[in-house]
């Protein structure tokens, strides 16, 4: 249960006083977390979840919402950052909401994570082949092309998309649309 995960400032001081070792990721280390929340399929339920984050001062990096195989249930994939104490609190606050059916933190498990990105970039005769090379390396797909711009579709883990955008930066990016992370636990 969660009380083995969490360390409050008070607990850290107590541990230090007792000369016990404190693992950095016990408390202070901030990391990314992907939390999957199954909620009742209604706008109100979705807003309550988001509202909880803002009302209690938690971070959100990205949120995706969509229906599941059961049309009365929506699945929210929430990407957030925090230390283990904060994340434990996030999970409890989420579970406590009336409309949440299941709350899972995927970060401590083996899971698949994907994000979709559309990226529009200006090209010239000189840069065209280099842009296409980069896209090839990242297994991007050209989904639209005009005389001045090309639009790529790219999917993969968020880090891959970060890296792709990074590589495209020197070439006059016009527009970037990212879907936010969706994730699912692997079956063992």
């Amino acid at each position: 249960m969660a009380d083995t995960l969490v360390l409050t400032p008070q607990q850290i001081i107590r541990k230090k006083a007792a000369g016990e070792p404190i693992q950095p990721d016990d408390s202070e280390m901030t990391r990314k977390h992907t939390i999957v929340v199954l909620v009742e399929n209604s706008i109100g339920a979705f807003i309550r979840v988001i509202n909880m984050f803002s009302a209690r001062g938690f971070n959100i990096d990205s949120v995706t919402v969509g229906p599941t195989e059961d049309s009365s249930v929506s699945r929210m994939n929430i990407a957030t950052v925090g230390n283990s104490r904060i994340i434990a609190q996030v999970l409890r606050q989420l579970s406590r909401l009336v409309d949440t059916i299941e709350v899972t933190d995927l970060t401590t498990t083996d899971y698949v994570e994907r994000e979709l990105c559309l990226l529009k970039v200006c090209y010239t005769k000189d840069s065209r082949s280099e842009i296409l090379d980069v896209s090839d390396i990242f297994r991007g797909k050209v989904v639209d092309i005009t005389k001045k711009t090309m639009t790529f579709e790219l999917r993969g883990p968020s880090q891959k998309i970060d890296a792709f955008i990074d590589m495209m930066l020197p070439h006059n990016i016009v527009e970037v649309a990212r879907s936010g992370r969706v994730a699912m636990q692997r079956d063992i």
Partner: protein
Amino acid sequence: MKYDVHTKVQPVVTGDALPKVRPELTTKGQHMSGAEILLRSLEAEGVKIVFGHPGGAVIHVYDEMHRIKPQFEHILVRHEQGGTHAAEGYAKATGKVGTVLVTSGPGATNTVTGIADAYMDSVPIVVFTGQVPTGLIGNDAFQECDAIGISRSITKHSYLVRDVSDLARTVKEAYHIARTGRPGPVLVDLPKDVLLAKGPFVYPETVNMRGYAVPAEGRVEKLERAAQMIEESERPLFYVGGGAVNSDSSELLTDIARHTGIPVTTTLHGLGAFPEDDTLALRMLGMHGTWWANQAIQHCDLIIAVGARFDDRVTGKLDSWAPHAKVIHIEIDQSCISKNVFADCAILGNVRNVLEQLRPMVKPKDTTEWLKQIDVWRQECPLKYEQDGKLRAQGVIENLRDKTNGDAVVITDVGQHQMWTAQYFRFLHSRTHITSGGLGTMGFGMPAAMGAAFGMREIGSSRPVVCISGDGGFVMNAQEMSVAAAHKLPLKLAVINNRFLGMVRQWQELFHKERYSHTDLSDTNPDFVKLAEANHCVGLRATTPEECRQIIDEAWKVTDRPALMEFQVAKEEMVFPMVPAGAATGEMITDRMTPNSFV
């Protein structure tokens, strides 16, 4: 790994809390208007009293009320905020759910303070707000406001009813959510067209909410660990909060404490859960708690937290609070566990269920040395105030206690008088101390006392209902006095008048070099005796200890309406002991003479 969601699995409803649906009221399937469905649902839910104020959006509900004469009483309050506080007072005094009915727009926004108060203090109330017709929502219609949006972060849950066929089920769920688990306010927004639409009325007998489950029993392995921690401890201490009152665990807790010999300190909302005349009672802890309770916290090696949430007014500076203690936390709300203070052993469950499980697992302990040490602290710094023949607030409260032998429902407002009441009244019974703790709402006292008095009348209790208020807070909702008078409630309203916003004044004196910025009320205070009389109440005034006793006797003779007692007391009085905000619990100021090293 899935996050522990075992609390999300099976909805548990504890036995007698749920009123049975009376079959004669569920005229099954009969077609009626939404307004009538609402009233019939309230009847089926066993509601006895509704605090409300009509308006355009709910006019059909009031029309149906006039026509069908439902089996509950409607109390017309004079301000919606007063209505919500009255519902809170009623709920806290009786343990039942309070009900509020108001119109849209300003009606809804006026309830916000009361809803926030109920949210912070875990008070079960259901607030029905009118709403403009669904077709007009979002059009900035007359008296429209987004009640759901405004109340989202101060309600346990809220509903916008879009279809008349959802109405009865929504009412059922709203009461279920408000009453069970950690209690709290639920808001139900009712568009006017839904109230006008016709639909079949079937009041559901059960609720089915897959996302909402109520913890009841604690896990056995956690309980075993807790019992072992209690066994191994040398200086254990019960720290008891409002959860013990909400779950009606007072007798059980008292039994366990006496059985084990473990002393008990209570929070502001825990007052009354353990009889304060018991030798094991350390009284209140925290910012204005007793010296000995706070010393016990700082020196104990085990805290058994029972339905408490380690509020900042209890702990002060977190990292130096209870430095030697391990913590067992018995709690129904998972989000309170290890939120502020790490719980070495967290038991998620209903306080009553968990204590019932724990009782046979704990053995009597030898705590003689520990209690002896606490007695030393008790002698070191007793609660005291100057005895110079002047009328002082603490003396007034002691007189009220003597008049009632501590057997009264005491409602306080917020400020110095609230802390003095907590310190000096000595609460003996559960549900006899009602106050605004978390939100600290001035203006709570008078209407909450009215609600509590209605509750006492409903359950046929002869316990007097006493409201202790300051001159600042009393004025904020004084309009409800006339409502109490109209219903012939024999309320005792004590106004401790120091002609100042006393608690702010105290902070200004201690921490702001005596710059009394806008806290002097002497120019704007009403004549309280005349105010009482203008509201059809009896008004009395005392300026000396002798008069104080006299007017209390006189007030107790009034049985057919509220009696207001104004006590004019010294303005310089301060609440001691005190842990300054943000300071460590060990750094208590015990009197005026303590050097101001903390500034």
